[in-house]
Every structure is written in structure tokens, then in C-alpha cells.
């Protein structure tokens, strides 16, 4: 029983239809709210004089599971692997758009070269893919202990 359940989960993990059937403004709103929350946190840190460098990117990456936690609460089920990757990409694209606008308004350069947007996008895709593969391994461990939150 457990085996067949695990088999169906692994087949479903690449089923894009599961995510696309239920995608709505809520997923975008989750990402936008999270981006604004991060912006506020960074504004507070900036105000307090913290200098962020690579830590900044780590905070952004560590905050991404919040999207999946909210998804699980809203949909009463976990998002599958491909759904999580797409949700992460939506988050990153929205974040890059916001950063791009912010840099253009402030006229100040950012930690990495935003001009090279194509390279950065592919870099993010590789990072997101690797990140979600790790999450995919962590999730069953959490589920077995009854700590599954996304």
C-alpha cells in the first residue's frame, strides 16, 4: 500500500496538470506578499546598517518554502515537484521585475549584474531545480515524522 502510494506520488510529481488546473491569483498574491515582506525586512536591515552580500540571496532562497507552506494550507494538499519549481520561478521572476524597477528608480547597482538578465535567469533556473530536488528528498523525511509543512 505504502509502495503504491509512493509510486503514485513520484508519477504525480511531474504531472504539470495538477498544478495548472488549480493555479489562480492566490499563488501570485502569495509570491507578491512574500516579496514585499522580504523587501520590508531588507529595508529594516538597511536602516539598522547591516551589510548584506551573499547572505541576501540565502535569505531569499530560504524564504521560498513559505510559498509551498501557504499552498498546502490553501489547497489542502502539497504541491508536486513540477508545481513547486514553477511556483518558485513565478516568485523569482516577480522578484527580478521588482528589483529591476527598484534599481532603475534608485539608479544604483545591485549585488549582481541585473543587466545580464538572461544569464541570471538561467542561473536561477539551475539553482531552483537543484533546490527543489533537495526539498523533494527532505519532504518524505518530514512526512514520516509527521512534520510535513509543504
Amino acid at each position: 500500500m505504502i509502495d503504491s502510494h509512493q509510486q503514485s506520488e513520484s508519477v504525480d510529481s511531474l504531472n504539470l496538470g495538477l498544478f495548472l488546473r488549480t493555479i489562480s491569483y492566490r499563488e501570485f498574491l502569495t509570491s507578491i506578499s512574500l516579496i514585499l515582506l522580504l523587501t520590508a525586512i531588507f529595508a529594516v536591515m538597511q536602516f539598522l546598517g547591516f551589510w548584506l552580500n551573499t547572505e541576501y540571496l540565502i535569505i531569499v532562497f530560504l524564504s521560498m518554502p513559505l510559498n509551498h507552506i501557504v499552498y498546502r494550507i490553501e489547497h489542502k494538499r502539497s504541491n508536486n515537484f513540477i508545481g513547486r519549481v514553477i511556483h518558485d520561478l513565478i516568485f523569482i521572476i516577480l522578484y527580478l521585475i521588482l528589483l529591476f524597477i527598484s534599481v532603475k528608480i534608485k539608479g544604483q547597482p545591485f549585488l549582481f549584474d541585473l543587466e545580464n538578465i538572461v544569464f541570471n535567469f538561467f542561473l536561477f533556473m539551475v539553482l531552483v531545480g537543484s533546490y527543489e530536488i533537495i526539498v523533494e528528498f527532505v519532504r518524505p523525511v518530514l512526512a514520516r515524522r509527521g512534520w510535513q509543512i509543504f
Partner: protein
Amino acid sequence: MANLLKPKLIVATASIGIAFALSLMDKKFYDSHIAKRWGSPLQWSDFTGKIDPLSKYDASVSSTIQLEFDSSSSTYKAYAVQKNVYSWVRESSRSDDLLNHEQYHFNITEYFARLMNKHILDSLGQSQEQFQSKLNRLLISENVMQSKYDEQTKHNKHRDQQGLWEYKIDSLITSNSTDSGWLTDPFTGVTIFFPSKPTFSQRADSKTIIRLYSLEKNDFILTLLSIKISDFNADSTIAKISKIYYSSFEAKKLNVIQYNKEIFKLRIASEDSLGGRTDFIWRYNYPYLNGAGISYHPYNDTDTIGYTSIFNSFANSLYFDKVRK
């Protein structure tokens, strides 16, 4: 199906509110804003702004051009100003080199302020809107130049390019001032362009007269050296020049790059035991032997292109005719 619309909107609104409020506080609207006019060199005390934690750089200077109406002369005048509350520096990164790099950002603004003043003088009678519109166009060009400066010097990392930009910016400012930068020595008749005012010294005894103009910058020295030689002979002059290199420049290695015996035009590059280099062009114009060149100490072997460009520009401005071509 749970809907977290309300909490999400609360988070989003509160975040925007916090970011906006902090941004207002960050602008230090309650702090004293000082717009320092170009003239006296920048000090780190002029950088009172909050550090941008998301910036990868160590310092940032904010400068712009202000247009003011001078009621005594009934004309507008443009001033380059540096704003203290928008200029910042990381405490751990303060250095004279970095301050010098930021100073040249301010100098670029001064160059464009001078262009604006030139335009005002050439177009007297224009309205404030017309001047403002011209100023806006100049500020766009200024921005492009500021970016190019940072890009080519790699934010002060490429020292030779930093030197080249200092030479360029000084030259542009000097060319747009009452002191045009052209120097003619009254004794030797030699004319050359110095990007800013050089110091002068002379040594004379019964045998010889040596006149020396020297401009010392952060990473290089430009020199115009004239030695009186009444009984000129090409071969003995070369021996004399070699002696200068080995005794005064403490040269370890000499490299003759160009030699034309007919007009006596000699270009020599030298290197001393500490890695210091010189590149000089020597010309004889009776009764003076004149040498113009650069001395520098490259940080590494590849960081020399900028210094060579400075030398070429400096040496090409050397001439002996009464009328400048």
C-alpha cells in the same frame, strides 16, 4: 479550500508601509542637508548618508548640478554640488585611494557644470526653462560618463585606467578654465599640455641649466625636463641621457623604442630595481635637450595600457613651434 487572502493583503500592505516609512527616514529629511560646492577636496566627513546594504560597492558619492540666478550679473550660473546625506562609505573601506576615486566622480560633475556655464554665456537671454532643458540633457551625458568611468576603472581596481581617467578628467576641466593647461617655457620655448598646474624647479650652475616641470598624481608623475646643451652632438647626448637614467632614475634596464638621428627624436622606456617604470620622449631644440614623459609604478605587468595612453597623449602635446598646431 482555505483562503488566506486577508492575511496576505495585510502582510503586503504592512510591508509596503514599513518599507516606505523607512525609506523616508533613510532620506534623513530631518538631517541637515549640505550641498558642497566643487572647489575644496572631498573629505570622508562629507559622506554622512546611510550605507546601502544591497550595494556591492564600498562608497557612493552623490553629485549634481544646481542652476542659480545671480542677481548682480542678471545671469544664471551652474554649480557642481556634492550632497552629504546621499553620499556614503563603509567604515572598513575608507582609504585615500577610494576617496580619490569618488573625488573624480565629483570632478566629472564639475566638468559638465563648466559646459553648462559655457552654454549660458553663449546663449544669454534664454529663459530658465531653456537652460533647465539644456542642463537635463547635460546631466544625461554626465551620467553616461560616470558609468563609463566606473566601468573602465572597474571601480578603482584597474589602477592604470584610474590614472588615465584622472588625466582625462583633469584635462577636460583645465581646458574649460581660464588656465587652458598649455604651458610654454619662456627660456626653452617648449610648449606642452599639463592636465593641471605643474610645479617648477630649476638648477643652474656654470656648466649647465636644468629646468623641470613636474605634475605628481596619485599613481604617476608627468615631467617636462629641459637641459641646456650648447655643443650638441647626438652620440654624446645619448651618453648623457643614459647617465641621467642610471644616476637620477636609478634605472636597471633601458629600452630604446624609437630613435631618429636626423631630428634627434629618441623614445626610451626604463625600469628600476623596484619595478618603477618611465617612458620618455627626448627632442633636441637648440640649445635645449627636452624630455617629456611619465613615471609610474604598475601594480602588475598588465596594468600599463592606461599609463602608455597617458604618455602618448602627453608626448604628442609637446612641440617647439611658436604657433600651436
